[in-house]
């Protein structure tokens, strides 16, 4: 028991001595592995290198990460669309721009081509060809209209990368050919080395934007063509043939090339052929229809512009006219949603702005007016207003100047009296000049007077009673006398009619005088019987004295046996009446 215990202690001691340090290390390692924080730190130290190492071997990491990355992108988009958009913007924007501009360019080209090909004889020919060959029309067009230019051709010494010969198309700016050719060789080497391509498997084409570099390699030299646009399929063949020919003819010079390119001067024309033989295909003509289309657009735009300018000028004139128009005060002109709004003051007597709009050939529905009424002191409007207020008759002409209202023409006495009264209540009138007005009544009275004085009644020989058949004359006389009396009344005058009796010169003077008096008296009796007052008449008999007839005939004797009239008008001395 004691020995056994001792042995066990000794064994333990031995074990401690033998594996003690390793045991401590194992414990430390265990602790280290159990501590997640330390573990994370350790892994993070080697993770990038581990990924690089594994990625260089196979694609397992990429495959493993794929779902995670997809999920991460999805989550990012879901969370905030903008973050990813912002990150991608610098890449996407130029790409999108390029795509759009190329689409637009293609559209213009295709429009031009469509116009050209749809209507030209060549276009019809191509359509026929498409029908005949069964190829789509587009393919035929493409076949015939490929546009490209071989800009440069390099003949490069394969081993050194030095330029043996170089040609450039006219108007093409080229970089130093030595540098370009060397770099081209370097790139070729770089690509071959980088992608583990077998030597002898040459680079055939490079493409940058609308340019491509086609390369043909021979044992001693390389031929490279720089082309703008889409190179035709047979261009590579042309390069190949040219290069083969150069090898055939210049093999000695190529093999012994030591930096001196002079021996290759003669092949310049051969390289130039590569440029020129492709040039004859270069045909670019804009369709005349495009010009017609363009012309039509320009023409329409011209019409539109003409209309625009004309309307603009019309509007300017209209506004100018409106501003100078009497009785219109424009305060504001505004333009809102295609319509024009004009506000201001307008005298109701002023011209109608809407009518003026029509006169100016402008569209009335595009202009909206807002007028506040007011009274303008413009003389013309004042006169119109005065005319209305005074109820001026047609026969009167009014003139308003410096506060004085001048009247001219004829008017009734009542109107004049009324006008005198009204004028006092119209502001602005200081005086009413009525001197030149002719009173209608006065004029009428003169006419009546003349008429009465031209009338006469006839008698038979030796008779005092009026001859029969003069009833109409009597009626006229009565009517005229009545009118005369009433006019005299209005004008404040006294009218007196002298009835003059006449005889012929047959018979004694005494008899004739008596007869003439009787005749006058008889006529007076007729008139008084018609209701006239006797005091308005006087009678007188003049016998054959007036008019004195030198040679009396039967005819003029008859006409002289008569009664005629003389009218006398005198002012009636009456209170209240100032003027006739």
């Amino acid at each position, binding site marked *: 028991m004691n020995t056994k215990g001792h042995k066990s202690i000794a064994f333990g001691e031995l074990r401690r001595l033998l594996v003690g340090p390793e045991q401590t290390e194992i414990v430390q390692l265990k602790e280290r592995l159990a501590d997640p924080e330390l573990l994370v730190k350790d892994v993070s130290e080697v993770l990038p290198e581990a990924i690089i190492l594994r990625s260089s071997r196979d694609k397992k990491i990429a495959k493993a990460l794929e779902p995670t990355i997809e999920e991460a992108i999805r989550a990012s988009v879901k969370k905030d669309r903008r973050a990813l958009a912002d990150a991608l913007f610098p890449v996407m924007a130029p790409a999108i721009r390029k795509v759009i501009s190329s689409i637009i360019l293609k559209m213009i080209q295709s429009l031009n081509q469509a116009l050209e090909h749809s209507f030209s004889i060549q276009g019809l020919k191509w359509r026929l060809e498409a029908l005949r060959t069964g190829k789509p029309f587009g393919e035929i067009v493409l076949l015939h209209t490929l546009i490209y230019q071989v800009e440069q051709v390099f003949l490069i010494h394969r081993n050194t990368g030095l330029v043996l010969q170089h040609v450039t198309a006219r108007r093409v700016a080229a970089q*130093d050919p*030595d540098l370009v050719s060397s770099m081209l060789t370097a790139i070729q080497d770089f690509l071959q080395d980088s992608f583990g391509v077998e030597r002898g498997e040459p680079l055939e084409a490079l493409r940058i934007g609308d340019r491509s570099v086609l390369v043909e390699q021979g044992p001693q030299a390389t031929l490279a063509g720089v082309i703008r646009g889409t190179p035709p399929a047979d261009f590579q063949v042309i390069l190949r043939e040219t290069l083969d020919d150069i090898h055939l003819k210049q093999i000695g010079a190529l093999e012994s090339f030591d*930096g001196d390119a002079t021996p290759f001067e003669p092949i310049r024309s051969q390289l130039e052929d590569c440029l020129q033989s492709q040039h004859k295909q270069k045909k670019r003509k804009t369709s005349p229809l495009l010009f017609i289309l363009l012309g039509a657009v320009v023409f329409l735009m011209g019409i539109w512009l003409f209309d625009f300018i004309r309307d603009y000028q019309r509007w300017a004139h209209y506004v100018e006219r409106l501003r100078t128009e009497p009785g219109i005060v424009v305060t504001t002109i505004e333009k809102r949603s295609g319509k024009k709004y004009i506000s201001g003051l307008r005298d109701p007597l002023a011209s109608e702005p809407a009518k003026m709009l029509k006169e100016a050939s402008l569209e009335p529905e595009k202009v909206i007016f807002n007028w506040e009424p007011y009274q303008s002191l413009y003389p013309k409007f004042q006169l119109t207003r005065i005319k209305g207020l005074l109820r001026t008759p047609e026969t009167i002409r009014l003139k308003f100047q410096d506060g004085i209202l001048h009247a001219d023409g004829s008017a009734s006495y009542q109107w004049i009296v009324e006008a005198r009264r009204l004028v006092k209540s119209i502001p602005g009138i200081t005086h009413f000049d009525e001197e030149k007005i002719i009173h209608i009544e006065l004029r009428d009275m003169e006419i009546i007077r003349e008429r009465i004085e031209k009338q006469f009644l006839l008698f038979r020989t030796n008779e005092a009673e009026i001859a029969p058949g003069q009833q109409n004359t009597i009626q006229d006389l009565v009517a005229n006398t009545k009118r005369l009396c009433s006019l005299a009344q209005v004008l404040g005058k006294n009218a007196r009619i002298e009835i003059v009796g006449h005889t012929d010169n047959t018979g004694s003077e005494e008899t004739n005088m008596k007869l003439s008096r009787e005749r006058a008296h008889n006529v007076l009796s007729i008139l008084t019987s018609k209701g006239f007052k006797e005091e308005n008449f006087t009678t007188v008999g003049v016998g054959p004295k007036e008019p004195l007839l030198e040679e009396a005939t039967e005819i003029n004797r008859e006409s002289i046996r008569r009664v005629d009239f003389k009218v006398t008008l005198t002012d009636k001395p009456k209170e209240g009446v100032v003027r006739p």
Partner: protein
Amino acid sequence: MIKKKICMLGAFAVGKTSLVKRFVKGIFSDKYLSSVGVKIDKKKVIIEQQEVDLLLWDIHGEDEFQKVQRSYLRGSSGYFLVVDGARRATLNTAFTLQKRTEETIGKVPFVLIFNKWDLKDEWEIDDKTMDDLSKDGLMVVKTSAKSGQGVEEAFLTLTREILEA
């Protein structure tokens, strides 16, 4: 007119690029070096009325990450081995490169350039080492890309050597 391809070789950051920058005509940007691994410039040299166009292939530095692509050496008429005088290790790199170049394109003239002469005080390579190399028949030129000292001489020496070869 004669054209010659020349390579610039040397360890990383010995000043190859700076060395040619101020003395040559170039159209390519420096970033070609890190992408394609080479940048090409052109220098015209006149030797006894003979114009020579040198196409300088500045090949991306030799270090543990980047091996010189041998295909770039092909067709070279000569080369520069550029050493940073302030870093002795670059001399060893130069010799390694020289050996490999000779394996690739055979014996062609080369000039050993000790660059950064303007930092002479910090140089790790002493005059004796350089003298010994000269005595061994190597063409040695001390240059400073900063001041331009020795650069023209280096180009002329190599070109003359190439024309005589």
